[in-house]
């Protein structure tokens, strides 16, 4: 039994990042290493890295590389794919990069004065700047032009002043000229260029924390995923709201809106008041039975709100039956009420779990206290990861549990999500799902309660038993959660259209934590040794094109970045075998 527990410890070791001896485990997570946090400090380096790649591969100037990257939304992979498929000229033309040199326009080196056609002045040749397109104007005119464009928010693509010239101005020249006139604005220009890396980037998003933590998150695969920023916020990379799986983005959007809109109605209902059918005054229910009496003297039925006589028992009101006779109008009202009640039903459960989640976050402190008290004791076992792991499992499950209620609400009650199911099918699937949900829920509650036990006062034997209970319960909870997701993904969402179907998949180890982005400014060596092997893996696993093309692409990719292709391909193979082994 002891062996079983020990081997399982590793299984729950989600905190392995802290363990320097087990670097392998890091790679086991489905996406770990592919989610990076970009801080203010690393933003510049991250951008430089992409710029440098493109500049090297295409031997382009920085501003051309930037224009290309902005056009391709900083997706280097995509850009290089286009390069492979269409060639450099096509690639550049698509993004409006004109790299041809037109020296013939340049002011003659022999004349000392040249005409600037913007200010219509003769200016000394050394006070003129020529862009790559060959068009030249005086420095003062350029500066004015840049200032206007930067203030218009167009830093990312300041075009040449010549009529119908599409060329983007060389940012180094922009910087020098603007800085001479207005250093503050030059800084602003640099900031705009820098932030383009986040704002125009398909794979990068600002962390939506409020107040903002200043970080951005970069993922390698933009397919729906949830990430955790270094600030601790877990959010959906797709819609930038709090992590909401197993709800789809659409479900979550609808639900949040509904909660906002209906909060008053719900509150009103939950404080147990109803309008009197005679005078419309709000009446509170104070007794146990369903007959309520307004101050105006009118008696009515609590369940349907209809006026009644006063004669009643606990079971019914004389001469009144909620369901016996109804006008069509009343039927409709009944329907709306049923919807509302349905919403309240799910909302209450959702709310209960989010409330518990908040309460349980306090557990973290108390448990830490208990652990430190235990640590002071003379004990053979100093490893308390089982408590923290259990707690972590609880947090993770509680969150999912709470979001599973809005999911149920939409999945089984909204036309948008059940269009392919017949009523009977829906009912069967609903029962199946709710059965699993209840099992999951029961285990979460059990886990919650045993984690609250005063184990710091337990005897050694009792602690060992609790340890086993928590570990076992955590495993069961994890498995149940996985099953719940399986049911959602295969039985429920599988029948729906693609767009409404997508949810972030369940990850036993939790939402992908963004690790710090390490970029080295002295690229050449570092890149080859450390980062590229990862990049290579990323390409292999995430390129959604055919194998042949992938291989060709990878070859070309490495041809550019590696002096020794053979070594790299070996590396990749190793990575692949590792991967297939791990999936067993």
């Amino acid at each position: 039994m002891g062996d079983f527990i020990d081997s399982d410890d590793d299984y729950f070791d989600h905190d392995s990042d802290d363990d320097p001896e087990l670097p392998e485990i890091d790679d086991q997570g489905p996406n770990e290493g592919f989610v990076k946090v970009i801080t203010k400090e690393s933003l510049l380096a991250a951008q430089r890295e992409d710029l440098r790649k493109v500049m090297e591969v295409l031997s382009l100037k920085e501003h051309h590389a930037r224009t290309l990257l902005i056009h391709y939304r900083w997706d280097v992979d995509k850009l290089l794919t286009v390069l492979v498929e269409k060639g450099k000229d096509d690639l550049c033309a698509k993004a409006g990069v004109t790299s041809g040199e037109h020296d013939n326009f340049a002011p003659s080196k022999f004349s000392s004065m040249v005409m600037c056609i913007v200010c219509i002045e003769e200016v000394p040749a050394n006070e003129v700047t020529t862009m790559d397109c060959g068009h030249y104007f005086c420095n003062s005119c350029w500066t004015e032009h840049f200032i206007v464009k930067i203030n218009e928010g167009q830093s990312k693509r300041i075009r040449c002043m010549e009529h119908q010239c599409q060329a983007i101005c060389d940012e180094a020249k922009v910087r020098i000229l603007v800085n001479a006139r207005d250093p503050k604005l030059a800084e602003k220009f640099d900031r705009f260029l820098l932030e383009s890396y986040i704002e125009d980037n398909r794979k990068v998003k600002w962390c939506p924390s409020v107040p903002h933590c200043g970080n951005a998150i970069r993922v390698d695969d933009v397919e729906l995923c949830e990430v955790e920023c270094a600030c601790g916020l877990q959010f959906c990379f797709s819609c930038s709201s709090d992590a909401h799986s197993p709800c789809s983005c659409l479900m979550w959007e609808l639900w949040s809106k509904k909660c906002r809109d209906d909060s008053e109605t719900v509150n009103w209902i939950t404080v147990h008041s109803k309008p009197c059918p005679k005078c419309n005054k709000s009446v509170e229910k104070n007794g146990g039975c369903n007959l309520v009496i307004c101050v105006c003297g009118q008696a009515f039925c609590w369940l349907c709100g209809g006026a009644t006589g006063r004669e009643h028992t606990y079971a019914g009101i004389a001469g009144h039956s909620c369901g016996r006779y109804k006008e069509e109008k009343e039927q409709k009202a009944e329907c709306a009420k049923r919807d509302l009640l349905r919403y309240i039903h799910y909302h209450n459960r959702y709310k209960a779990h989010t409330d518990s989640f908040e309460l349980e976050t306090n557990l973290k402190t108390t448990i830490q206290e208990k652990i430190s008290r235990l640590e002071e004791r003379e004990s053979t076992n100093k490893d308390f990861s089982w408590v923290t792991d259990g707690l972590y499992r609880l947090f993770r499950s509680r969150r999912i549990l709470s979001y599973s209620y809005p999911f149920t609400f939409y999945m089984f009650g909204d036309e948008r999500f059940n269009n392919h199911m017949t009523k009977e099918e829906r009912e069967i699937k609903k029962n199946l799902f709710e059965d699993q949900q209840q099992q999951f829920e029961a285990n979460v509650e059990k886990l919650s309660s045993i984690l609250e036990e005063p184990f710091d006062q337990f005897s050694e034997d009792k602690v060992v038993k609790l340890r086993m209970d928590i570990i076992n319960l955590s495993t069961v909870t994890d498995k149940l959660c996985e099953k719940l997701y399986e049911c959602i993904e295969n039985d429920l969402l599988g029948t729906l259209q693609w767009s409404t179907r997508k949810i972030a998949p369940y990850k036993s180890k939790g939402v992908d934590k963004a690790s710090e982005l390490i970029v080295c400014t002295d690229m050449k060596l570092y890149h080859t040794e450390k980062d590229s092997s990862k990049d290579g893996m990323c390409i292999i696993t995430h390129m959604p094109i055919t194998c042949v093309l992938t291989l060709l692409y990878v070859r070309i990719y490495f041809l550019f970045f590696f002096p020794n292709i053979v070594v790299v391909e070996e590396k990749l193979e190793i990575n692949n075998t590792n991967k297939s082994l791990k999936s067993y």
Partner: protein
Amino acid sequence: MANSNLPRRIIKETQRLLSEPAPGISASPSEDNMRYFNVMILGPTQSPYEGGVFKLELFLPEEYPMAAPKVRFLTKIYHPNIDKLGRICLDILKDKWSPALQIRTVLLSIQALLSAPNPDDPLSENIAKHWKSSEAEAVETAKEWTRLYASGA
């Protein structure tokens, strides 16, 4: 006040507009504001606007020439790229403005627009529809408007 530090370019452009005006176009700055121009464009021959004299106002904003001049028809005109308020849909007055362009080029472009209306890039939805569904009829209306509002009286 507005005239005190007028850029040399504006002065030069104004001088040239006055000394060698483009055919069918006249532009003269207002007495009290050298950035405000009274403009007259003659309807181009063989266009529905032939024989008409169209008044426009042109204003050079503070950022000129880094920003485009603001131009508007004062005379009512039936044209798919000009709306009720006389605003003109012309690319060089918007995103295609280049500081290398001048008042003269802008006015010549507007004159060209009168010769070649472009109902595919309309500012006035109704007129554009009219133009596309029955051009002959639309041209008649344009001629009628020219006679009514732009007869130069």
